[in-house]
């Protein structure tokens, strides 16, 4: 923990400001002349807050968006650990969008270097990227960075608040700070008297805050690493958790939209005569590229939309799915080489004259399909615009809406909400943009825009479509050479273009999870090819690794089988770093790898590193008369530190289910430019009865704290395909697998 202490001393100072008799504590990077001052609601003098205490309550600000991953709970836990409050003593709030909440952990995976590469080039690029992110004030929830971004600085925020409260108690009582301790939201004085933080707030607000606070040794932690009941579990278990889509306001109207499903195409004309007199319909609004209905409730808006005849214009990408695939297949050319990421040994020489194993892999477009469809409430007022929506990029929302309405960013107030899932969907802006388009037509009225599920699917920006071509060679029962060419459209460029952000250099995500494979194969080459933009794409949980990880570990398994080697033993033999070996050993032990299996059963293993987390999974399946049954999954991930074991297990298991479910049955195909799958019955993920028993283990050997939202996803499809091969002899090289095998 020496590193954390150093950071706390070097990089953080305390900010404090009076808030209606209370005090706000925070920490922010010292050397940041370009950081904007904090935004605040009218009448509040708040800046950089993570801890807010007034005479009534202790409020912890949790600016990472909670999209179901437990971010609010995690952030509160880290602050509470050092603040010495119990979780039932506090309330949490997402705070306002602020540059001070820029993501300090985002740079690591945004540069084309392995996360553990400490070379000059890697460090320089990370520095440049960090500076850019800081300058942008990029408050981002994504890239599995919420924990690494929060781990040091939120504990520091809690510690500084605690020490300042002790100082306030000293001033009020005359006792020495050194003789005080804190517990459960109180300062305990030497005579045993207890002073509640809330009672000390007014005095604390008048003090110069304590600036140099060492963080506690992990041996003293009360909350981190313990089974602590998650803050939102009661509300979620009882159905009382409110999400953005649940909001109700006085005078609110409800809207829904139909936009051109051939994304990017125009709306040529529409006839709303069949809808305008329908019950509850208040207004029908033409938008750029679509139409909206404002009604007195959501359902009536939905139904009215269906009665509008619309003529759509064509979009800018191939109309038929086959043409998408043809473009991908034509992309393995020198002109489209994005980067040769890995060139160990001499692959060409190794394959020349060898008996070459060859295979082609494919991954389709898939939608994000969160259970809560996109929504947003917007109220356009004379001097302020209020937006209630769940978004992973709060400050970008502010800036975007300000630009759209010709107002100052300070006048745009985003009230970030809990999200019923995102998986990357809430990094896009369609719900915000459309809600603003509609609400500006009725100033002063809060309007809730809710996308129909079908609209949510069709207007989504899909996961990148891609293919891989692999060649491999074996000798004496070992893998000796592997050559992997991966071609996908660049989701990063597609997304960045919509944000108006340049994206220099190669796309790190095309071959993510493949080029950084932790194997010492003597002759190993991984090349990424960028397919020109087709249908627009976006970050999808685990991004590039969700496709390239499948390609790499599926093909790797083929080559291992061709060598006649054991899939786990050979991976262990090739593993070139301790973390990779540890996670493989862990799943081997957990699954009792090598133990005899029932007839018709098979096991597959896969190891993929994404977002700095080497994650190994073993999947066990049984080939039943009705189809493949997925029985059990074992997962081990090296994350440096598990903040909350229960949440960790749930997030990892959720990632496995997500990865398996999509590998089984989800794809988006285009016909006449339009997605053919429009609801869960056509892309359903995993059903409850299909869910295997999942056993999770978090390893804490590495000094780097890592997030685990995405890393459990990429190994799942490969481990499943590898298990099905063992059980059936059928090698699955193309997702979704249900096009080839049945699942029960």
């Amino acid at each position, binding site marked *: 923990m020496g590193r954390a202490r150093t950071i706390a001393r070097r990089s953080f100072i305390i900010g404090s400001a009076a808030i209606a008799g209370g005090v706000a504590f925070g920490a922010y990077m010292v050397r940041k002349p370009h950081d904007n001052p904090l935004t605040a609601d009218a009448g509040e003098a708040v800046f950089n807050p993570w801890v807010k205490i007034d005479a009534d309550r202790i409020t912890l600000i949790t600016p990472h968006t909670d999209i179901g991953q437990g971010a609010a709970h995690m952030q509160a836990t880290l602050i509470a650990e050092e603040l010495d409050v119990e979780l039932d003593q506090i309330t949490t709030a997402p705070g306002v969008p602020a540059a001070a909440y820029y993501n300090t952990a985002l740079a690591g995976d945004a540069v084309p270097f392995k996360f553990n590469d400490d070379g000059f080039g890697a460090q320089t690029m990370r520095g440049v990227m960090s500076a850019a992110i800081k300058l942008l004030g990029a408050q981002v929830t994504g890239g599995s960075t919420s924990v690494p971004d929060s781990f040091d600085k939120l504990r520091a925020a809690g510690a500084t608040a605690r020490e300042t409260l002790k100082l306030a108690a000293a001033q009020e009582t005359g006792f020495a700070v050194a003789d005080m301790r804190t517990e459960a939201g109180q300062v305990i004085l030497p005579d045993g008297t207890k002073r509640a933080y809330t009672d000390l707030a007014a005095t604390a607000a008048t003090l110069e805050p304590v600036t140099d606070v060492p963080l506690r040794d992990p041996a003293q932690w009360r909350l981190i690493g313990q089974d602590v009941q998650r803050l939102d579990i009661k509300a979620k278990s009882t159905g009382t958790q409110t999400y953005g889509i649940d909001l109700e306001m006085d005078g609110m109207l409800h809207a829904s939209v139909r936009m051109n499903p051939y994304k990017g195409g125009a709306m040529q004309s529409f006839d709303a005569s069949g809808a305008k007199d329908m019950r509850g319909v208040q207004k029908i609004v033409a938008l750029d590229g679509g139409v909206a209905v404002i009604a007195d409730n959501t359902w009536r808006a939905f139904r009215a939309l269906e009665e509008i005849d619309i003529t759509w214009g064509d979009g800018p990408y191939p109309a038929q799915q086959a043409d998408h695939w043809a473009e991908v297949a034509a992309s393995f050319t020198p002109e489209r080489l994005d980067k040769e990421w890995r060139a160990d040994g001499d692959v060409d020489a190794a394959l020349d004259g060898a008996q070459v194993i060859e295979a082609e892999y494919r991954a389709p477009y898939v939608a994000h399909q969160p259970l809560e469809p996109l929504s947003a409430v917007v109220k356009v007022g004379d001097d302020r615009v209020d937006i209630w929506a769940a978004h992973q990029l709060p400050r970008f929302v502010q800036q975007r809406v300000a630009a759209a309405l010709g107002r100052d960013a300070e006048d745009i107030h985003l009230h970030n909400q809990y999200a019923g899932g995102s998986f990357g969907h809430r990094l896009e802006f369609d719900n915000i943009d459309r809600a603003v388009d509609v609400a500006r037509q009725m100033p002063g009225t809060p309007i809730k825009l809710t996308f129909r599920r079908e609209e949510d699917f069709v207007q989504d920006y899909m996961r990148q479509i891609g293919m891989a071509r692999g060649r491999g060679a074996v000798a004496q029962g070992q893998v000796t050479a592997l050559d992997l060419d991966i071609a996908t459209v660049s989701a990063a460029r597609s997304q960045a273009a919509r944000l108006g952000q340049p994206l220099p250099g190669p796309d790190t995500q095309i071959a993510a999870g493949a080029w950084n494979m932790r194997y010492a194969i003597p002759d190993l080459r991984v090349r990424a090819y960028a397919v020109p933009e087709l249908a627009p794409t976006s970050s999808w949980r685990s991004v590039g690794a969700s496709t390239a990880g499948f390609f790499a570990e599926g093909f790797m398994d083929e080559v291992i089988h061709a060598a006649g080697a054991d899939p786990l033993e050979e991976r262990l033999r090739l593993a070139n770093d301790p973390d990779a070996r540890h996670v493989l050993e862990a799943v081997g032990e957990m699954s009792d790898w090598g133990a005899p299996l029932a007839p018709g059963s098979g096991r597959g293993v896969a190891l993929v590193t994404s977002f700095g987390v080497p994650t190994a999974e073993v999947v066990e399946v049984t080939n039943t008369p*009705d*189809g493949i049954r997925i029985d059990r999954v074992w997962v081990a991930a090296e994350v440096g530190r598990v903040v909350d074991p229960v949440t960790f297990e749930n997030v990892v298991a959720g990632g496995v289910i997500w990865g398996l479910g999509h590998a089984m*049955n989800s794809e988006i195909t285009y016909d006449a430019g339009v997605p*053919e*799958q429009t*609801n*869960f*019955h*056509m892309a*359903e993920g995993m*059903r*409850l*009865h299909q869910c295997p028993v999942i056993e999770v283990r978090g390893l804490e050997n590495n000094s780097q704290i890592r997030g685990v939202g995405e890393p459990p996803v990429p190994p799942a499809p490969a481990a499943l395909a590898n298990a099905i091969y063992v059980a059936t002899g059928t090698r699955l090289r193309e997702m979704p697998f*249900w*096009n080839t095998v*049945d*699942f*029960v």
Partner: protein
Amino acid sequence: MKRLALGLGLALSATGVLAQDTDRDAGLAAWADIYAVASHPRCTNCHVGAAGRPGWAGLGYGPDRLHAMNIIAGESRIGAESVPCRTCHIGAAGANDRPHAAPQIDDAWRLPPVELAWRGKSSAEVCRQLRNPDTNDGFDMAALSDHLAQSAFVNWGFTPGGGRDAAPGTLAQLLENLDIWVAAGTPCDNAG
């Protein structure tokens, strides 16, 4: 008209006069069309065995497969032991225009009796099963015809709505084929 034709066919076949003269090939051809209906997923989804697990098919559901949500109709065949079919298939005739909504008919949703299970069976197996009251839930041919004509399930199978695949042909054609098959003496292809 077809009720009359069936009555006539049954009467005549009962006398043993016309049946022998009826073209067996025509009967077998009619049976082939009946089997095309019986073996269609729209029908086999429910004509399942003792496991009581209905199937799902069509509408982008991918390959014909077991009903999702782990639905088991149980020995009761109505799901009484776990989740009643009526939890979702609420039992009133619906417009059935929402592909992802549970379809509704004007009857209590349930699986047919186990004796009428024919999912996965060959044409000849189903044929012999269907003409024998011991294995067809006690129907004589007239009652079977009435059942097909009146069953809300069978009707729905031809007009499932919401973009679902319908059973091939029409209900009228099915009944007509049944008449021909019965008039021909319910022949079954021995090859199966």
